[in-house]
């Protein structure tokens, strides 16, 4: 019974077709253009309740515009769009108000009585019970992103929009965040739309991966791999090279791919060790 949110006044969609389990997200022939360029060009998309969808696409394929449209930050030029009012977005940067401590950030904009208790519960869920009163400036990148996640989930969204939320995190933190997001998704069962550049991340997390090109869906793959997934799993690499092919990237030789991956991870691990050390040093001071 999610209320309708209509960004386009010309088209009012009645949810008569699917009374039983209305798809929280329904897009029909949606067009968004900036000047002459059609960033979204006649897009059709349905997301089922509780479905985890990952959106892949090269830069300029329209995925960020699509997410902003679904978040209510951008409107459409024509077509039909239906999204639940109860939705939340987490962006690449945590976007916390620096002048509010963690729990006040979490309940910002909520009009409820037991605000602090709710915020504490949400922060406990993301493993930050000990940082309830911390200012964003004292949080690490991963902690800040978890506060942003708690801020989204405390609103009990029917649709959770994630715009490359792990892109700015180091490799180790990213692995922990993947696990966390899956746990929270299972518990709260919102529909999730994850925009990402990372093919592996999409395969690890999503039920369905959509590849966007030139403002429309170029292809989509349902990921049937059993969860807990990992990149060593049978079938993972097959899905991976198929997706890379769709994205126009020639899949490199396996050995080369592995070594590149490793160096990137090593570097990220070094970075994270350094930042951890820096944090410890700051805490001591």
């Amino acid at each position: 019974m999610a209320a309708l949110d209509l960004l386009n006044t010309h088209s009012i969609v009645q949810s008569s077709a699917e009374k039983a389990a209305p798809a929280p997200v329904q897009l029909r022939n949606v067009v968004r253009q900036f000047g002459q360029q059609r960033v979204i060009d006649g897009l059709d998309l349905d997301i089922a309740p509780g479905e985890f969808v990952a959106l892949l696409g090269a830069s300029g394929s329209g995925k960020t515009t699509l997410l902003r449209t679904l978040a209510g930050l951008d409107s459409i030029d024509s077509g039909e769009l239906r999204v639940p009012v109860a939705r939340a977005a987490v962006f690449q940067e945590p976007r916390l108000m620096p002048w509010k401590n963690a729990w006040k950030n979490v309940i910002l904009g909520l009009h409820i009585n037991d605000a602090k208790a709710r915020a504490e519960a949400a922060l406990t869920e993301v493993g930050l019970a000990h940082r309830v009163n911390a200012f964003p400036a004292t949080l690490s990148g991963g902690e800040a992103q978890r506060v942003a996640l708690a801020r989204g989930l405390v609103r009990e969204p029917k649709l959770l929009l994630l715009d490359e939320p792990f892109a700015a995190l180091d490799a180790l933190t990213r692995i922990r965040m993947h696990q966390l997001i899956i746990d929270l998704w299972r518990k709260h069962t919102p529909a999730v739309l994850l925009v990402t550049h990372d093919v592996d991340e999409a395969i690890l997390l999503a039920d369905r991966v959509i590849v966007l090109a030139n403002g429309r869906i170029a292809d989509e793959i349902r990921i049937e791999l059993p969860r807990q997934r990992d990149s060593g799993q049978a079938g993972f690499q097959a899905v991976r090279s198929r997706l890379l092919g769709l994205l126009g990237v020639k899949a490199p030789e396996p050995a080369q791919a592995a070594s590149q991956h490793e160096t990137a991870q090593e570097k990220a691990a070094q970075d994270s060790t350094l930042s951890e050390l820096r944090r410890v040093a700051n805490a001591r001071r």
Partner: protein
Amino acid sequence: MSETTLNPADSGFLVVSKPEKTQALHQARRWEVPGFVLRLLSPLALLLLWELASQTGLLPSRVIAAPSQIGGTLWSMIASGELARHLWVSLQRALLGLSIGVSIGVVAALVTGLSKRGEIALDSPMQMLRTIPSLALVPLFILWFGIGEFTKVALIVMGTTFPVYLNLFSGIRNIDPKLIEAANTLGLSRRELIWHVILPGSLPSFFVGLRYSLGISWLALVFVEQINTTAGIGYLASDARDFMRTDVIVICLLIYSVLGLVIDGIIRTLERYALAWRPTFVRN
């Protein structure tokens, strides 16, 4: 004591080896003079030279009074309550002008910062007014408002409005649009957006403006109190000039510098409370 040894076997390496610090070294350090005492030595020497020059007549008191004489005058002015009386009058003028000026600046900045229409209507007149030096307004203000208290306060208001206006306006406009976007996705109303996001976000800029305004309010006294006054620090200085009392002039200068320090301390304290979230103030 060799700190770096290079022998043929180590060629291609930089080898650093230091002997362990011994007890003797620690004991030697205990007799060192603290740094701040050393730093005080040269000003004290200068003061001593100044006193000597005054005593020998090398520096006539017409040019500048001797430090001992300045000290004596300062003491008698404090003891008689004369200094406190002038200070109090000046402080009242400065605070009255400042509070009116800051209020006008804040209201104007909120109107122009928060609405496009407000900006169109109010920003250009404010930008025009701010370029007029308030000193240039003295003759006009005297013609309009006479030479009473009103003119003095009005001139301070003129000087203190614009720093607050300009800084707060730019603070409001320079808030990270990503935070505004986040607030919109969180469903904040316009009123909540202003209260929870825009105002706290522009507070650091407001303090920059306030700092300028405080300084200006105090500076404005110097010339404002030369217009038909019988009390105030500015009056004290101009009166001392007429009687060639260089000691009193130096005392007035001292008061200005001490007050500058006090004002800065007040603002710092305010910022520490109001901007506790900023990384520079945050303690883990």
